[in-house]
C-alpha cells in the first residue's frame, strides 16, 4: 500500500500525463490513449517501487522526450493520412478555400462602410496647400490606434468567430444569408456615390471617400484574415480535441 502523500503524487502525475496526451492527434488518442495511460500507470508504480520519487523523476525525464517525439510522429502520420484523403478532393478543397476567402473579404465590407460613415463628416478635404492628406485612407490604414479601427477590428473578430463557427457547424443557410447580406451592404457605397453626383466637390470628395473605403476594406480584411485564422484554429482545436472540454480519454 502506498503512503497517502506518495499516492497523491502518483495520482497527480497520472493526471498530468493524461493531460499531456492531448498533444496527440484525436484519432490516435482515442485508440491508444487509455492503453498509454495504463502503461504509464504500470511504469509509474514500477519506478516508484524501485527508487521512490527519484524513480518517478527519472521516468518523467524519459517520458517527456517520448511524448514530444512520438506525438510529432503521430501528427505527421495523421497529416500524411489526411493528405491522401484530401488529394482525392483537391477540387473541393480549392473551392472551399476560395469561398472562405471571399466570405472573409465580403464580410469585412460592413466594417469598411462603418469607417466611411464615421469619417465622412470629419476628415478634411484633400488640399495640398494646407498639408491635408491626399489619401486619408492610407493614413487610416496605418493608424491602428484610431478608435473606429479598434472598434471595427473587435467587431470583425466577433464576426469571424461567428462565421467560423457557422461554417464549422455546417450552418449553410446561415452562412449563405450572412454572405448575401454582406454583399448587399457592399453595394451601398456605389449607390452612395450616385447620390454624391450632385454635390459640388463631388470629384475630390468621392475619391477621398473611396480611398477610405478601400483602405478600410484592406485593413479590416487583413485583420479579419488574421483573426479568422485564429478563430479557425480555435474551432479546429476544439473539433480535434473535444476532450479538453472535460471528457476524459480513459
Amino acid at each position: 500500500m502506498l503512503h497517502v502523500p506518495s499516492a497523491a503524487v502518483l495520482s497527480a502525475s497520472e493526471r498530468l500525463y493524461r493531460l499531456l496526451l492531448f498533444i496527440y492527434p484525436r484519432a490516435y488518442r482515442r485508440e491508444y490513449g487509455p492503453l498509454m495511460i495504463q502503461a504509464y500507470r504500470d511504469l509509474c508504480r514500477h519506478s516508484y517501487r524501485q527508487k521512490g520519487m527519484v524513480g518517478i523523476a527519472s521516468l518523467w525525464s524519459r517520458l517527456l522526450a517520448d511524448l514530444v517525439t512520438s506525438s510529432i510522429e503521430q501528427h505527421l502520420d495523421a497529416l500524411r493520412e489526411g493528405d491522401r484523403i484530401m488529394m482525392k478532393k483537391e477540387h473541393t478543397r480549392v473551392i472551399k478555400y476560395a469561398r472562405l476567402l471571399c466570405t472573409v473579404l465580403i464580410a469585412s465590407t460592413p466594417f469598411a462602410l462603418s469607417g466611411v460613415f464615421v469619417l465622412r463628416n470629419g476628415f478634411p478635404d484633400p488640399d495640398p496647400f494646407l498639408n491635408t492628406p491626399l489619401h486619408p485612407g492610407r493614413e487610416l490604414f496605418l493608424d491602428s490606434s484610431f478608435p473606429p479601427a479598434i472598434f471595427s477590428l473587435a467587431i470583425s473578430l466577433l464576426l469571424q468567430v461567428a462565421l467560423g463557427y457557422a461554417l464549422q457547424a455546417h450552418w449553410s443557410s446561415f452562412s449563405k444569408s450572412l454572405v448575401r447580406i454582406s454583399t448587399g451592404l457592399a453595394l451601398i457605397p456605389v449607390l452612395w456615390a450616385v447620390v454624391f453626383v450632385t454635390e459640388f466637390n463631388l470629384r475630390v470628395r468621392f475619391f477621398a471617400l473611396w480611398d477610405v473605403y478601400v483602405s478600410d476594406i484592406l485593413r479590416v480584411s487583413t485583420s479579419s484574415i488574421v483573426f479568422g485564422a485564429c478563430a479557425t484554429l480555435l474551432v479546429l482545436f476544439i473539433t480535434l480535441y473535444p476532450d479538453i472540454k472535460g471528457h476524459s480519454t480513459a
Partner: protein
Amino acid sequence: MTNSAPKIDEHLPLTSAVFHILLSLADQERHGYGIMQEAEAMTRGQIRMGPGTLYGSIKRMISADLIEESDERPDPKHDDERRRYYRLTDLGRRILGAEAQRLSDLVNVAQSKGIVGSEEVV
C-alpha cells in the same frame, strides 16, 4: 515464397523499437507494458520504450500486418480485461527472422574484421 521475398525486404532494416517489439513477441503474446518490460530485460535496461514510442510503433506494425491483437487472455482472472494482447503474424515472424539474420551477418562481418570477439557475442 518468391512473392513474399520482396515484401520482406521492403521492411528491412527495422527500427530499433519495431525490432525489439517483434522480438518480445517471438515467444509469447504480451500486452503493452509486458512488451516494454521484456524489451528492457532482453537488452539489460538499454532499451526503455515510453508508451508513446511503444503504441506508435504498435499502430504502424498492425497496419503493416506485422502483429495483430489477440483475443485470448493468459489468465483472465488475474489480468485487467482492458489490456490488449499482441502477437506476431506470419509476416511479422518472417520479417523478424530476416532482420535477425541480417544483424547476425553484420556481427559475423564485425568478427571477421576483429571489431568484436566471438566470446562477446551471445
